[in-house]
């Protein structure tokens, strides 16, 4: 595929006897939002960690715009233009919100070994603009540790965007958020993708989010890729329904609860 930004090619990884990811290949185009879904233990996080360099694949290749990522450190992959957010948002708790973003900008500059000027005065405008982008400028000077979780996630997003990445990796971006916050965060992501021409690879268990915002889905089960395609096709896929969606009643409008009650009591 010529226009692909990220190419994952026959990647495998096992832990001892557990084959967490087997021979998985897919591509991600520029400007695309690709969701990686699958049952628990399917290997999503493992695959994810291989893309961002925290884990090394046993076999296979992962290329970003043609250059090989396998064997590089997370830091180097970051320099190549990959940003990421974590499932449990990770920010610097002893800094204010804006300082968190400034930190990312200082690292991009790179200015980490400057010893004299006060860090809090550097890159402040740019950091402010990023905070405005994600809508937390109102909290800029509060300690990051007192923010509501939804806002922490936004700060994290601003940090991940600071170096102008081409690819954004988001591991369960909406975990631990309320339904409308989820939608807001994903709508924000969608908008940023449009404005900045980013591509996004994310894992997610929240189906409303996946169906509403993903351009394409890749489904893993027991380490293998079992389906990929647009949301409609995946929704209809019998195999995916069986191993992943189930009856769909926990994320779609519920049928009369009594029916489930009987099923549950068996």
């Amino acid at each position: 595929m010529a226009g692909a930004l990220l190419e994952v090619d026959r990647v495998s990884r096992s832990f001892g006897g557990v084959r967490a990811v087997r021979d998985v290949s897919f591509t991600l185009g520029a400007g695309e939002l690709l969701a990686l879904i699958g049952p628990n233990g399917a290997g999503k996080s493992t695959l994810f960690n291989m893309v961002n360099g925290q884990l090394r694949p046993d076999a296979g290749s992962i290329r970003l715009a043609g250059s090989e990522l396998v064997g590089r450190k997370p830091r180097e992959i970051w320099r190549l233009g990959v940003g990421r957010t974590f499932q449990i948002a990770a920010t610097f708790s002893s800094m204010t919100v804006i300082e968190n973003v400034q930190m990312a900008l200082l690292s991009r500059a790179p200015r980490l070994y400057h010893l004299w000027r006060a860090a809090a005065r550097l890159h402040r405008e740019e950091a402010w603009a990023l905070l405005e982008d994600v809508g937390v400028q109102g909290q800029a000077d509060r300690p990051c540790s007192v923010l509501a979780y939804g806002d922490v996630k936004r700060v994290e997003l601003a940090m991940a965007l600071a170096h102008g990445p081409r690819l954004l990796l988001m591991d369960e971006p909406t975990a631990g958020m309320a339904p409308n916050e989820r939608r807001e965060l994903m709508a924000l992501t969608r908008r940023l993708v449009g404005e900045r021409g980013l591509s996004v690879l994310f894992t997610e268990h929240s189906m409303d989010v996946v169906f509403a915002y993903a351009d394409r889905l890749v489904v893993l089960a027991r380490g293998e890729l079992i389906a990929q395609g647009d949301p409609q096709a995946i929704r209809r896929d019998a195999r995916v329904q069986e191993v992943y969606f189930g009856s769909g009643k926990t994320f779609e409008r519920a049928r009369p609860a009594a029916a489930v009650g009987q099923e549950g009591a068996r």
Partner: protein
Amino acid sequence: MSEPLLQVDGLDAFYGRAHILFDVSLEVRRGEVVALMGRNGAGKSTTLKAIMGLLPGRSGRVAFRGRDVSRLEPYQVSRAGLGYVPEDRRIFTDLTVEENLEVGRQPPRSGLAAWTVEKLLDLFPNLREARARSAGRMSGGEQQMLTVARTLMGNPRLVLLDEPSEGVAPVVVEQMARMIQELKGQGVSILLSEQNLHFAELVSDRAYVLEKGHIRYSGTLEDLVADEEVRRSYLSV
């Protein structure tokens, strides 16, 4: 059957100097599944922790089976028959799956069928494959299942269940729903903290809605689902 199993009266809770819960009162009757709903940061987890005795800063009355447990240590509360499933899993990563279950084991309680490791592995088949693996090597969702199973090993009469549907696949959410139904069938009561209205609707009889540490609503699930106003102002659904 008139006396509630769990009765919380005027519960206030603090983290350090931050006042989080204000005069929270709720009750759970025998065999009932009650959902505690609310946005992020509304205080759901805090309520469960406070009931369990895990917060040093709290005041108010918590009665379980008619006995005041609000001054007890968490282990005493647990021995009284209250099980707690934390939202952040907190499995023992260095221990195997089976050893994790062993930590939760408590003697059977009168009037309740006792859980065994085998029964629990039937309930969560994913765990069976991993029973001798160290728990830290399991995926997020598998760990979530283990947390629930571990608490059930204590044969609780009432389970405080903090967002069991979080971070697990839809099929597993359904599995959790079935498990809740099954527990209910056995006479175990559940206080469930949940943001997913679909899920709450599937399993619970009644709901309380928390907002900024205050109880804003209580009623049946049907009423809650029908009440657009409450849903919009406090649940953001």
